[in-house]
């Protein structure tokens, strides 16, 4: 494989170019060439045994730690990844890549079609979690890493971690699967559909060709984000954070301004989202999550895998107040692994912060991830 690596100074990111690769997607479509934007943190040790792949969630990117030049803020998991953090970059070599179909430098609907000066837009082929993982595996291969010590992710990142354990178990030693599931539930598909409808009913969307006039379907995309954001929180957390408090006023206005703090907060979330995320990417990536389904096949795939997978360790974590990926969904994975007496650990963390808990201050999550990585790494290198 001939992979070109280029540093994009504007994006503050490495870009891996895979040319003439003919990546066959699950849909049957073929991408001739593609690129993945990625970042690495820490140093790869001499026996290349300390590499960890962190997979980002729906609206995440490769900026897991350090500065994110797109937002001008810290990376989305800075509290978890870095020197002396739970995923300690003094010890581990951490790789994070923007998924295929994303919009932070990897090939996706926002990028130019091969050999043309027009962006893909709605012509981008449908990608799935399996396709994203396949692309990631090519990146890992090009970095000359035979085996990842761990693949870690929350939400859509957890889906990728699980997919790694199914498709490339011989190339990894363990996965940390946080707030995920074997499948995207009907309720989750429903929420995604509302988000997509919001985008597609924005007149500026124009069948995904909004970029031709240098426009962005801001309204649609921000409404999609507002809906999604509600599902990432919990009723308790919202009540604790906002209650019925009013925003910059003492009395209600008897109108449709953002009277309540919660409204103002959601509007802000929607507005800041459109500045950093591509509407078409949002359509494609939500769809990828919708298509994720290992409900019937997971156990069979683990039991009868043609790649050796008996060495795999699984850490499955859920949160009590997560109603998007409830504990029950995590337990289904645990049950199936236990029925095959695989090395699985499971913890349900007690918190009111909802699905977003994995991104937030949760001391027990920190200690479990840190301990799991450190002690299992020590066991291997004894």
């Amino acid at each position, binding site marked *: 494989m001939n992979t070109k690596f280029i540093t994009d100074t504007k994006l503050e990111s490495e870009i891996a170019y895979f040319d003439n690769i003919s990546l066959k997607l699950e849909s049957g479509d073929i991408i001739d060439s593609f690129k993945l934007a990625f970042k690495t943190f820490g140093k790869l040790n001499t026996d290349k045994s300390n590499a960890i792949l962190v997979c980002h969630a729906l609206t995440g990117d490769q900026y897991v730690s350090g500065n994110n030049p797109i937002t001008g803020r810290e990376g989305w998991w800075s509290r978890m990844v870095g020197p002396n953090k739970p995923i300690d970059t003094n010890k581990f070599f951490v790789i994070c890549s923007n998924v295929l179909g994303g919009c932070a430098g990897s090939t996706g609907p926002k990028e130019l079609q091969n050999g043309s000066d027009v962006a893909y837009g709605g012509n981008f082929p449908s990608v799935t979690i399996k396709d994203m993982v396949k692309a990631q595996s090519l990146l890992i291969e090009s970095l000359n890493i035979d085996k990842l010590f761990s693949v870690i992710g929350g939400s859509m990142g957890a889906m990728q971690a699980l997919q790694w354990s199914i498709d490339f178990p011989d190339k990894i030693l363990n996965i940390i699967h946080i707030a995920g599931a074997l499948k995207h539930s009907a309720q989750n598909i429903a929420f995604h559909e509302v988000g997509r409808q919001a985008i597609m009913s924005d007149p500026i969307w124009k069948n995904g060709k909004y970029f031709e006039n240098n426009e962005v379907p801001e309204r649609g995309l921000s409404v999609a984000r507002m809906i999604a954001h509600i599902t990432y929180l919990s009723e308790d957390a919202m009540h604790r954070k906002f209650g019925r408090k009013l925003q910059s006023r003492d009395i209600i206005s008897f109108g449709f301004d953002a009277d309540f703090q919660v409204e103002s907060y959601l509007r802000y979330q929607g507005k800041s989202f459109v500045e950093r995320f591509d509407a078409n990417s949002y359509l494609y990536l939500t769809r990828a999550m919708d298509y994720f389904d290992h409900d019937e096949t997971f156990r069979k795939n683990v039991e009868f895998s043609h790649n050796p997978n008996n060495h795999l*360790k699984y*850490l499955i974590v859920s949160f009590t107040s997560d109603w998007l990926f409830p504990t029950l969904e995590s337990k289904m994975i*645990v*049950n199936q692994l*236990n*029925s*095959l*007496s695989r*090395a*699985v*650990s*499971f*913890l*349900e*963390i*007690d918190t009111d912060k909802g699905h977003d808990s994995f991104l937030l201050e949760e001391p*027990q999550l920190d*200690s*479990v991830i*840190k*301990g*799991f990585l*450190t*002690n*299992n790494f*020590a*066991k291997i290198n004894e």
Partner: protein
Amino acid sequence: MSKINSIRKDWSLIETLITQDRKILDIGCGDGGLMEKLENNRNAITHGIELNRDLAANAIARGFNVIHGNAELDLSQYSNNSFDYVILSQTLQAMMKPKDILSELLRIGSKAVVSFPNFGHWKIRLQLLISGKMPVTESLPYTWYDTPNIHFFTIKDFLNLCNEMNIVIEKSIGLTSKGRQFDISESVTGVNFFTHEAIFLLSYKNFEPIKIKTSKKVFSKNSVIAN
């Protein structure tokens, strides 16, 4: 003996019952103390279940394979005969359905190790006899209204249940309140009176895997052939 010493003693005795290189499920594994011992000294592959969230988190953080879960609900997910030993240390008396748990232990494991405090110990009998109140002792330190121990039983009760369930007692170790250890099966008189804590190695009578054939696959099931 203090509670912590008695647990350590319990672990050491359990270790003597376990052979090398076995696959073990520790039910109520706490933060993995016994699992660590068995991994280090017996080269065991260990799995654990722990009900307490913080203890389970600690065990996972220490690198053990531990499920945060409830043995009474979660044991059913394990396949037949998938472990060499299933260990239930000092917990049987806290189970809602001890008999069901016991049969689950021997379904999942080829052998089971069960330890429990003996309610037939003379100190307990004496306390109840003299004071007329529910006994509170070092091994059963809780008041009746606030105790995890909801099923009290004696060695005699346990032996009767094993007999009824066609369970074979392969080994049995008793501990006096002073920590002296003896073989329960060899001490005929006064065992139920002097045993403070008891540890049993159990298996099924006439243990023969029976092959059951279905249209899809052949699987073996632990079976009991009643005599």
